[in-house]
């Protein structure tokens, strides 16, 4: 434990030194030195300048994630259970992913307005796929012996799902959730690229417009921290709430 933290610090230090070395001869407009970025970060945080943007982006992430993951999970379950649905819907699922959301900005604005809704929708769209795919796969690879057991117990499809397929697939489903959670951060930011005046994505655009690169990097660091917290959050949930589900499985 201690050792990891020690090396972690060391690596961070090395990265910072590397960054400093690369940034040194470079214009601040392209790659600001770490010091400049951290000053910007500190100023922005202590003055409260970042706060509304952070809150806005977090709200979008939380909403988008809830909607996206609920949808992804439900669709994943349905498509995993019903072959017909999987074959029917998969082209549309792929379409929703392969199409760059940035390109559809005008449609999103038209349908969901300039406000938060369009960003939430984009976040949801981006983060629903990894969960869907992992749920779908997890549901399909259930131990056939256990399926026999549930069959003989006269379990309905729903009961088999809830008491067998989902808990048995939980590790894979949670892996999908971890991917989703990190993508949600990108999703919200991309959504804010399109037409936002608040949020960290909007701040990136604004900082680019003013060529305030230290500000932009400060925002990027904030985003990374958010992503890390969310990821750790999922691990925490996995560790705490699902302890019983995880018990009796290795690691």
């Amino acid at each position, binding site marked *: 434990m201690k050792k990891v933290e020690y090396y972690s610090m060391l690596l961070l230090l090395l990265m910072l030194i590397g960054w400093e070395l690369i940034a040194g001869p*470079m*214009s*601040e*407009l*392209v790659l600001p030195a770490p010091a400049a970025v951290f000053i910007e970060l500190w100023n922005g945080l202590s003055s409260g300048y970042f706060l509304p943007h952070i809150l806005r982006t977090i709200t979008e992430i939380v909403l988008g994630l809830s909607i996206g993951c609920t949808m992804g999970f439900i669709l994943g379950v349905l498509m995993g259970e019903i072959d017909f649905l999987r074959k029917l819907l998969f082209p549309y699922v792929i379409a929703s992913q392969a199409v760059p959301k940035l390109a559809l*900005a*005008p449609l999103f*604005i*038209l349908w969901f307005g*300039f406000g938060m809704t369009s960003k939430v929708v984009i976040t949801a769209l981006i983060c629903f796929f990894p969960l869907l795919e992992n749920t779908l796969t997890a549901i399909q690879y259930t131990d056939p012996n256990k399926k026999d057991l549930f069959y003989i117990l006269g379990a309905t499809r729903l009961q088999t799902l809830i008491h067998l397929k989902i808990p048995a697939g939980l590790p894979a489903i949670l892996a999908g959730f971890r991917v989703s959670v990190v993508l949600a951060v990108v999703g919200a930011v991309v959504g804010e*690229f*399109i*037409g*936002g*005046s608040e949020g960290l994505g*909007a701040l990136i*655009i*604004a900082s*680019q*417009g*003013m*060529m*305030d690169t230290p500000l932009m990097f400060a925002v990027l660091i904030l985003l990374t921290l958010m992503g890390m917290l969310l990821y750790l959050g999922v691990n925490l949930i996995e560790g705490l709430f699902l302890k019983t589900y995880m018990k009796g499985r290795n690691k």
Partner: protein
Amino acid sequence: AKDKDAAGSKQIEEVKVASWSQPITEQTNLLAGEEKSFYKENGIKVNFIPGAGGGDAIKNILTGAADIAFTDPGSLYFALDKGEKLRVIYNIYPQNVFNVVSLTEKNITKPEDLKGKKIGVYSHSSGTRQNLLLLLHQAGLSEKDVTIVETGLLNFAPLMQGQVDATAATDTGLETGKQKGLSDVNVIEVKDYLNIPSDVFVVTEKTYQEKKDLLISFLKGYQQSAQWMIDNPQEAASLAVKLAIDGKDVNSNLKIIDLRNSSSLSSDPKDKTLGALDPEVLQKGADIYQGLGLIENKLDMPQAVIQDLIPKK
């Protein structure tokens, strides 16, 4: 054959030009280095580096990925404000091409009418926004008097759908919009209120000092190419089909090229030299940017402007 001789006799040098955009129709003269001889004759070869915004162009010269930036004055001001040592060497479009478009029924004919209105811009980092602010400033209004929303590149769609009262655009954008069925509009042209250039060539101090000859050759070539495009819009329009990523249709290309040709000409009747720079106007622009709070420092534009590289007829 003559071209080939000229090229063969001299050493061909590469000039990397970082643009604010992809290779687009309005820049056909810059892209036509293979097909036409403007650059070859001056012993250079243009390497076009695409970008997404004027800021990219400047960053690309700052990193050394390019020699010359094809960028807007706004980006130049921001970079100078951050302490970068940059030189403006050529006035690509002396005319301000930005405008504010609204449906006739809204009755918006002058900047004052924009008060309280919802106005679309491409994005918060775009020239449409900066020029809208300039225009508002000229009318004594500020950002707080209007609602600015981002609409993306398809900015006329929300205008037609009634989601915004007006939208900030460029002349070419408006032309394209009209081709797509936009009609009955009022247009407020920013140049009628503040005619700062739309685009200039910018280099770093270092490049200016070390590659002066190369820059002179390039500017010669570019000036010739601009003149060629003014003289042969039809030829340019057909070349654009191949050279420009958006040059699908010759007729629209022609319209765009006509617009760019007219914005390439200075409105000053005394100076008909293509590329002539007016430090005064640039200074005025910088001062307004400062007044708007977009930049912090007072810039000394005459010091940044280099006029003696521009080829004289």
